[in-house]
């Protein structure tokens, strides 16, 4: 598994995401977070692994981990169709803009998120958002759940095959109490 940016020119500068070599490491960090959120982009219905769409893996993960989901673009409808109600839905720029505001008290109004899991946006757009968060929300930790290495995140999975990706998501889901 490679820790080069998935899109060749999307290189970082002086900071580079720590690679997540095992899904258990990601789970440990998520469990340590007080107020994590999961931002899910429009590729959630475009990416398939082992005959299932990414969104289905993410619903399993969200149900098990109880991490609140923010659906971007029109993804809220896709979640609802599958019987899962996300905690919120918002444009990807809007949620990012709130995350760089330390006064934003999260979707539930109870406190600013301390960890953002992000997955399924167009690669370049997700990279830019992560760059914005890295620069303007320095206390916020960011983690991608994609199978493409994102240098601007705090933590990122390395580039991985679809099979590895599916396995990572399933392992992560299984490590939470609600997991299978």
């Amino acid at each position, binding site marked *: 598994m490679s820790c080069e940016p*998935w*899109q*060749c*020119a999307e290189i*970082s*500068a*002086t*900071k580079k995401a720590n690679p997540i070599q095992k899904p258990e490491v990601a789970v440990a960090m998520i469990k340590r977070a007080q107020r994590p959120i999961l931002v899910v*982009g*429009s590729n959630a219905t475009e990416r398939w692994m082992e005959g299932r769409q990414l969104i289905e893996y993410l619903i399993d993960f969200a149900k098990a981990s109880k991490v609140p989901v923010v659906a*971007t*673009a*029109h993804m*809220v*409808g*896709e979640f*609802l*169709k599958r019987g899962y109600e996300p905690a919120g*839905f918002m*444009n*990807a*720029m*809007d949620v*990012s*803009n*709130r995350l*760089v*505001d330390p006064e*934003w008290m999260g979707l539930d109004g109870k406190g600013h998120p301390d960890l953002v899991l992000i997955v399924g*946006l*167009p*690669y*370049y*757009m997700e990279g*830019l*958002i992560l*760059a*914005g968060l*890295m*620069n*303007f929300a*320095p206390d916020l930790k960011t983690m991608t759940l994609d199978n493409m290495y994102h240098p601007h995140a705090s933590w990122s999975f390395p580039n991985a095959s679809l099979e590895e990706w599916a396995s990572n998501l399933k392992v992560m889901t299984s490590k939470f109490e609600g997991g299978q």
Partner: protein
Amino acid sequence: MATKNVHVKIDEMKTSTGLIKNLEVSIGKIVDDSWAEPMGPTPMPSMSTLRDWDMKLLNKYKPFYMPDCDLCCLCTFGKCDLTAGKRGACGLDIGAQSSRIVLLACCIGAATHTAHSRHMIHHLVEKYGRRFPLDIGGLNIKVEAPITRLVTGIRPQNLGDLEDVLDYAEREITQCLAVAHTGQEGNNLDFESKSFHVGMIDHVGMEVGDIAQVSTLGMPKAEPEAPLVSLGIGSVDTTKPVIMCIGHNVIPSVGIIDYAKDNKLDDKIEIVGLCCTAHDITRYYNRGRIIGPISWQLRFIRGGFADVVVLDEQCVRTDAFDEARKVHAPVIAASEKNCMGFKNRTDDDTDTIVADLVSGKVAGVLILDPEKVGEVAVRVAQQVAPIRKKLKNLPSLEELVKDAKTCRQCDMCRRSCPQDLKLPQAIKAAAGGDISQLTELYEYCIGCGRCEQACPQNLMIHSMIVKAGEKFMLEETNFCRVGRGAVQDVEIRNVGSPIVLGEIPGIVAVVGCSNYPHGGKDVYDICREFALRRYIVALSGCSAMSAGSYKNSEGKTLYEEFPGEFTAGGVLNVGSCVANSHIAGAAIKVANIFAKRSLRGNYEEIADYIHNRLGAVGLAWGAYSQKAAAIAAGFWRLGIPVLVGPHGSKYRRMLLGREDKPENWNVIDARTGNTVNVGPAPEHLFQTVETPQEAMVAIAKLCIRPNDTWKGRSIKLSHYVDLHKRHYGCMPNDLHLFVRTMADVPMTLKDEFTKILEANKWKETVIPDPTLLPRMVRKMKE
């Protein structure tokens, strides 16, 4: 206009006091007072004149930066690491650096349009004289140059007047560019204000260029029913010699067309265009053809259709020459801005140039005289066509399969593809003889060619896609409406009231380039959706071509299905890039013609009017260029929101409102002076949307304005809710922010709204006469 140059020359005059000989008197400028409108407060604003207005907008719509690079490498102190709060050697932080990059992009864009206009007007003044009168719509247009009037306080009446306007524009662009030097501006919002300024100047530059070419070249003069023109390579008779013009500046193409017509060759030769030059060719010449948008350059050069390629300026692939040489198509570079390394043959004998190109002695020439370009291009095309026999640089199907078998499946093509197209899988299938996946990619490929640059096997991947899609390409026969130019004053009168009151739910301007995330059909779908909902849909540039490239179930293109008027349900193509000015101009004319607001040097008041009352929104679904950045900046300063598709996130800075912060949504009621909270209307000034579904919902929402009447608001909300339900599968969660009185609630949705309003403890408020400018408050009667 406001000022004139006066030059008096007397060779000989006898007077009572004596004989005067060879007297010359020059007066720089005299004021022309024939324009009754009084001069407003800000004629020819400098970059700080409208700073207060900019800050009002930037306070509502704060920048959200997404630095593409954490370093600054613009001076020799650097590279400096600006990550997460660090400052560079000059003291700049990443926020200011990001806004500085935005300013640079806007300066490049404004300089490009303005330089284009300067070249064109210089040429047209030489040909037609400074006194050539401007006429962009005959009796149908009295406000000939709304942006110019508004910004400069000049009412241009002839070609020469436009030179004075350009003098101002060029001065301001230089000033703004200077701001980007190390050790000038240090505050991000001041950089943003200057981006707004140069964006406003960009609109001046565009307007000047388009009204000059419309006035002199016989282009449609604000014609709603401008003719339909064939679109697509399938509409070109490729048995004839084909001259393919690429770029934006129509002057060399005019030389070609004139030569062909003068020599009665116009039915024996095809003159076609790619990108905005194509629009302007068809505005000038009824036999011209639009081949397609900017992203199709590689496709059509390699396809071998062109016998001569003529390059003017802007958005031209810089390897166009290398590509054309492979299909033995001679290239003529026709712009000083794009010399392509060719020898300047402008002063050479035409016969010699033609002979050199036809024989292949030289593969390309630089000719800066448009008439000479015309003669050389036509004669060379005639002589080269029988020799070339439409030589292609595409593989045969057998070669395609053979090449595909050498693919290592390393993924580098996909990792270099801006669209993340599944190229390795498609090539693998092709290696097994199934090209259907490659054929499918033809629609989504933006033609950048990065896949080929990345391939370690040197596979011509783009050519493989084009070959697989060749049948589809050759069948492309659609229609675009010829660029109509400006919007008539009478059209503004007819729609002014319903737009401002909200009964026409909005104006959707779909503009810009073709860096689409998933093909051009999204543009068609979005336009059709809003035309059917009786919004006004205005198009320009490459988007106008993409919108015409698909058909409905009856086989009609968008331009055949909907009228070209500026009216509810109209779909109008204003024309090329520089014609974008007519969309901003229409908004300005609503304030002037319908609301009787004075334009002359009165920018702030007009922008305040537009921002609070005119439900207009721009969508640049495939924006890629610095020009698009400058165009957007011009709309931002007018308070008009702009959406971009996902690739637009690479502009690295959004201007976002926060609907969860009610304190940001106060306006002043001009009737009473009271502060009124009007909700997030419009919510954003610049935002990226991910999908066409999201774009449609966002457009409907961004058309909401504080001034909407209850009837207008009800109509706008019903569209917002309907699109939201369809694409998001649920009711919007922010409706309580847009309802002022129960009359705003659409009748058929009353129950659903009531629940939402109750849940959010909604309270009724007033509908104000909204303004952000305290000076607009009218005095209360005693």
